[in-house]
């Protein structure tokens, strides 16, 4: 399958595909980070996570519409406002979901799966009723449209670089929040031993709510980033949810580094294979490999060593 390409061609294919892979990696990572917080730290299977991503995407869409309509002069900046808004909208909705539903189900993880599936159905229908069933796309401001020509055959799109930059920022922020701040310490304490944490005076209910909100908020940012590379439809979130769960499980649920490593390897493998095979076969091959590895290492690649 490699015949017919010169070395130079291969090199540029490789660079272009790995860059496409990096963008996929960004969306995966942002989705997976949110899920890793919710699933890994709290043990909740949130099947509506994809819909929170789409919520972020629609927030961005609305934001771009408002800017284009009423503040065309500031249109170049709408994206930054949208990212923050997406985080807030998705985060608050997540906190509401935790308060109204999830907190009753902490002891029944498989049931959270079914209940949140119901939530995702409802959200999808809400999107469909509000924005229509058709895909919507946002118009990017001019300065995001161009690309950066590295050589004759290699072009790096600017919007892709912005997505990647946002991902790095968010990942860093979450790392700092979870591992460097007092609040993060509380989160980790609650997740490791809920009873003990509440005994030493941590308000576990509040920690749960904010953790869930944070996870959903990050999904919202993922959605916001997603609008730059693809169009949004009510059911788009569903296509990502299984992949993301596998990413989280593959990396080891409790480890942030594992989530990063697994979303990187999965997205790169898929993106590079996609060039040589057709898209669906690449996806199948990567998924099967991940499932195979998960069968050998059920705890994921980077499992936290704890006594069970």
């Amino acid at each position: 399958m490699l015949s017919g390409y010169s070395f130079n061609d291969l090199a540029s294919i490789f660079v272009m595909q790995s860059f496409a892979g990096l963008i996929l990696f960004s969306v995966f990572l942002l989705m997976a980070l949110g899920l890793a917080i919710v699933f890994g730290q709290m043990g909740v299977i949130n099947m509506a996570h994809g819909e929170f991503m789409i919520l972020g995407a629609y927030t961005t869409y609305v934001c771009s519409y408002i800017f284009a309509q009423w503040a065309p002069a500031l249109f170049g900046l709408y994206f930054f406002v949208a990212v923050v808004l997406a985080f807030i909208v998705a985060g608050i909705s997540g906190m509401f979901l935790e308060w109204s539903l999830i907190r009753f189900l902490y002891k029944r993880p498989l049931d959270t799966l079914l209940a949140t599936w119901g939530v995702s159905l409802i959200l999808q229908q809400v999107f469909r009723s509000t924005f229509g069933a058709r895909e919507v796309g946002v118009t990017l401001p001019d300065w995001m449209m161009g690309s950066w020509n590295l050589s004759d055959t290699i072009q790096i799109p600017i919007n892709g670089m912005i997505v990647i930059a946002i991902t790095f920022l968010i990942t860093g922020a979450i790392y700092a929040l979870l591992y460097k701040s007092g609040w993060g310490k509380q989160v980790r304490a609650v997740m490791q031993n809920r009873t003990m944490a509440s005994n030493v005076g941590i308000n576990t209910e509040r920690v749960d709510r904010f953790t869930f909100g944070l996870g959903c908020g990050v999904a919202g940012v993922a959605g916001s980033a997603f609008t730059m590379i693809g169009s949004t439809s009510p059911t788009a979130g569903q296509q990502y949810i299984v992949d993301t769960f596998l990413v989280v499980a593959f990396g080891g649920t409790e480890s942030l580094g594992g989530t990063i490593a697994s979303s990187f390897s999965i997205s790169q493998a898929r993106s590079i294979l996609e060039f040589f095979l057709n898209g669906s076969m690449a996806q199948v091959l990567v998924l099967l490999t991940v499932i195979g590895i998960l069968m050998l290492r059920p705890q994921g690649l980077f499992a936290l060593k704890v006594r069970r």
Partner: protein
Amino acid sequence: MFSLQSRKDILFLSILSVILLIVLPLGLDAFRLNLVGKYLTYTFVTIGLVACWGDSGILSLGQGIFFGLGGYCMAMFLKLQASTLEATKSQSTPGIPDFMDWNQITALPWFWKPFHSLSFSLVAIIAVPVLLAMVIGAAMFKRRVGGTYFAIITQAIASVLTILIIGQQGYTGGVNGITDLRTLDGWDIRTDHAKLVLYYAGVFLLLACLLLVRFVRQSKLGRILRAMRDQEDRVRFSGYNVANFKIFIFALAAAMAGVGGALFTLEVGFMSPTFVGIVPSIEMVIYCAVGGRNSLVGAVYGTLLVNWARTSFSESLPELWTFAMGGLFIGIVVFLPGGLASLYENYIDPYVLRILGGNRSQTSHAVDETA
């Protein structure tokens, strides 16, 4: 002569058989009865889920895989029957299914060839899902992967299979699936008479499966399975090989899903990836949950009820139905984990027991044993 439990089971199964064999065929027109026949094919999956999820605590979100595999095995046989040299003579390669011809495939692929034989196809309907279930089960349960991980991985396998079927258009018919099925060994399956025969065949098969699962649940095996669900480690420490029991029950559920899928293909005359993926798989779980994950008869009623509601609702108010379906998921999980069967057990069962001649003290621990 019979224990109270058996008397109750006989009562429930008789009521169900009377409804399915007499009341519905007399009360419904051909079109509605055919719809019920279609819903019945899902009940094979849900009673498998009762054994697998309710009894053994293994939540599989991939029952659509087995349903689809059974259905595709049947569809491949029917498609080959429909693709005679006579019927396909306008194709560039006569004698192969039409969608292969459209995809420039000139010879029948090797894995299609055995499906010329009816007996092979009938065996494959059960064997293919069972084999896959055993492979998945062995790989997972021997490594002690369970609970949420198992659910997610079965889901991922469902999505892999859907992507494969859609991607390999030339071999599987792609998104459209395998359509335009006409005869089963020379017998036209599209007539009203054939649909009626298929309906009754489905009911009898279903009753057979119900008896089989009831037998498994009431045997010592069933007790081990329930013990495993509640305290897996204790069962393991008592010297039982937990993994093998799990593989067995998972494969049993897969076999029944396969039969259901094959019947589905016969009833509706086509098979497509829509019935394989994640969405149908989760919906099948919710049918089971609505009826009651611990009640066989309940799961059958739950499946029929949800599907009937979906059809009648979505004809007039499709938007509302999605909301209702979502609300149903949430409501059942939060307020009624035992499904409709638990409503029955709490409110009606005491009276039924009195009629059957039991005393009230027996009601409390009979909850888990209903057929």
